[in-house]
């Protein structure tokens, strides 16, 4: 996002949902444990993968800028590219 002084027009508040999950080739022992627990309840579970959801509220000029800002958050901090991937969903509040 541009510094405040360089922005034009009114800002809208956006809610970005960043879903982080282990890459397909990374084993997910938490998911495996949950799968075992679900099976113990009698549920026929083939596979479980876990992840986390991070919800961020912030102001941006438009949806494109909001998406770019949320993607940058994912790249810089929220996901570790060695082991994780993430998807971003953005909506105006």
């Amino acid at each position, binding site marked *: 996002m541009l510094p405040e002084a360089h922005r034009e027009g009114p800002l809208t508040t956006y809610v970005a949902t960043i879903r982080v999950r282990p890459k397909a080739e990374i*084993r997910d*022992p*938490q998911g495996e*444990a949950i799968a075992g627990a679900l099976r113990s309840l009698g549920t026929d579970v083939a596979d479980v993968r876990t992840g986390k959801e991070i919800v961020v509220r912030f102001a941006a000029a438009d949806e494109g800028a909001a998406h770019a800002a949320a993607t940058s958050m994912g790249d810089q*901090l*929220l996901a*570790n590219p*060695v*082991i994780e991937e993430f998807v971003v969903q953005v909506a105006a509040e």
Partner: protein
Amino acid sequence: MKVAVLRFPGTWSENDFAHALTLVDAEPEILWHADADLHGYDAAIVPGGFTYGDYLRAGAIAAISPAAAELKRAAAEGMPILGSCNGFQILCEIGLLPGALVRNRHLEFRCDWVHLRIESDRTPFTAELVGQIVRMPIAHGEGCWVADELTLARVEANGQVVFRYTDARGGATPEANPNGSTANIAGVANEGGNVVGLMPHPERCSEELLGGTDGRLVLAALTGVRHTGRAPASVQ
């Protein structure tokens, strides 16, 4: 030799490291991460703990501290840097070391003694120690080192694997692997060999009083002082 020992919110092994460093004649100084300046130091330690409560990922939040930029600068200039446990996780998150540390395969927190084979003498912490089997304590829930196949092959080929979990005779068996780590890897170095990370705690096994002294070998390799003849702190 002046050694900076970094302290982040949630670091817990900085005093142990500072103490152990005095046993090999180093002059340790504990530095707060937010304004850490590594100029004038000969080496740096990133100790274990649970920085920022392990929130997000172990070491992830510490890795964007001002200290991370300072560690990158010092590493590029060739400064010897050692990260243990959470310090290893932080150095991987910063990108100074290859791979990442994830949840132990069995999901258990492991607090135990392990044997390690020292695999490389290309680092200032293992010079002349290659081939030795040492015994050190571990205490972690996220110590399973992973990397993609290309990175693993490169790390193995370059001699960047520094410590491997083994049995007492040096066999890297699945039973000797406490967390499911890839290829029994317990510690790695950067390409230059000056930055080293390991899950075990050398600072917790540097005196007979603590049940072992093998950790002192790693610190002594750094300072070149094997034994100062100093009495343990408890009887001083």
